[in-house]
């Protein structure tokens, strides 16, 4: 028992500080991906309702590709592909040397690609749930297109899209575990190192498992709160 307590303590003997760092990396990776993914996803959703068939097709191709590839493969392609691509470009302009891409950035970009392709579908169905009269009413008041979008459509859109986006957040949180494969020191990587060094695999992978569960639990509580906050106008009626 004492052995386990030492293993789980903070400081030189224990692994808790390393694992806490891993939790920080996991959470910050998910939080860094979120705005990027939401922005791209929103843009793709706008593209999918464009009057131009070219824009619609281009947006559809984007979602089809990134929903069809495994997340792990997207991650590897972004990580190694960018590395090789940048090296080629640098070689062309005469610089020779090994370039290493920040694995955090590669992780955030590839997770955002996957997240945005799913988010665009959520946004699209939310857009379809808003009646056309909302736009027309805004234009009748003399508001500009951008203002109508920002002041009238977006507030309703977010409320409708919130449950779907909440699900995507949970998926994103779980997908961050994949970045351990490209060497980012997230929860799984840190517990994996601890498991290898101490030979207590079940203990440390069990801790990783529980930590993800706790993160999911916290997220679902927070998402419920946000959803209730979004619905506070409806409850009054």
């Amino acid at each position, binding site marked *: 028992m004492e052995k386990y307590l030492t293993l789980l303590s903070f400081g030189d003997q224990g692994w808790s500080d390393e694992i806490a760092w891993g939790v920080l990396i996991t959470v910050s990776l998910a939080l860094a991906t979120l705005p990027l993914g939401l922005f791209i996803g929103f843009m793709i959703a706008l593209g999918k309702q464009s009057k131009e068939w070219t824009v619609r097709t281009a947006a559809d191709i984007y979602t089809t590709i990134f929903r069809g590839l*495994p997340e792990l493969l997207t991650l590897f392609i972004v990580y*190694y592909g960018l590395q090789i691509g940048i090296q080629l470009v640098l070689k062309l302009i005469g610089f020779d040397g090994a370039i290493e891409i920040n694995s955090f950035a590669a992780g955030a970009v590839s997770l955002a690609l996957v997240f945005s392709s799913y988010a665009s579908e959520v946004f699209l169905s939310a857009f379809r749930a808003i009646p056309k009269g909302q736009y027309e009413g805004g234009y009748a008041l003399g508001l500009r297109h951008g203002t109508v979008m920002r002041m009238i459509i977006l507030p309703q859109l977010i409320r409708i899209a919130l449950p779907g986006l909440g699900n995507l957040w949970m998926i994103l949180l779980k997908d961050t575990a994949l970045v351990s494969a490209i060497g980012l020191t997230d929860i799984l990587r840190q517990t994996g190192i601890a498991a290898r060094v101490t030979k207590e695999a*079940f203990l440390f*992978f069990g801790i990783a498992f529980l930590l993800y569960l706790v993160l999911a639990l916290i997220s679902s509580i927070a998402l419920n709160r946000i959803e209730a906050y979004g619905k506070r106008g409806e409850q009054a009626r």
Partner: protein
Amino acid sequence: MNGAAEGLVAAQPAPVPPPKPWTRSRIAGYLLMAFWIAATAGLVVYLYLAWDLDKIERYGPKFLSGLYVTLTLVGVSIVIGAVISFPVALGRMSKNIIINRLAFAYVYIFRGTPLIAQLFLIYYGLGSFRQQLEAVGLWVFFRDAWNCALFAFSLNTAAYQAEILRGAIESVPRGQWEGAEALGLNRIHTFWKVILPQALIVALRPYGNEIILMIKGSAIVALVTVFDLMGETRRAFSRTYDFQAYIWAAVFYFVMVEALRNVWNRLEARLTRHLLR
């Protein structure tokens, strides 16, 4: 007399439609399409230039065997998961509070944690209990990474499938139960002959999505030394440093997922044709 007809203007050709204005979205659309076309062309040219008969002969069969491993792993775990999901779904709908909570906990735990964490816990973690497992004779099973992956995937997909099944069964209106009862059918017959066929139609699309998610999710077994499609890709890349390995893997996965999606759309259209109005 005959003036009215003569006074008519002869038929004119339709006016020329006004030229389509070059709006910003139209320009953006052309640029985006140009980007995708250029990307596709670049990919084809890249694969053509990188085509190396030596590598294809050496790694091509390995890719195919990796594909086979991926497909069997996903296929078997989906079937085992479907079998496990049945009691779990029934447990989720049970009025017995203990069974209900247990089923809920199972579903929550497996849906709330990453599949890769579950896989690592089973593959690496169970190694800590080697003596105990050897004593009960299970070590032979858990020693093998493929078996561990199958075990983890089956448990994981069972949790997701249980939720799909529960949602589908609960979506069948209660009048169906009542109608069957009025006809004198017992509950088991009602469930198998009346409720389940209707529920499975509702569940068809989520099931298809789950299979696609499993195909994509199965790529992580490469991290526990199973040589599936992803594993073979990583091995080929680490030996040749040739990036086309990943591109080929992407093509394989993409074709698999898109083919399944199209087959599933056809299947759904076929099975729901009686619902068309």
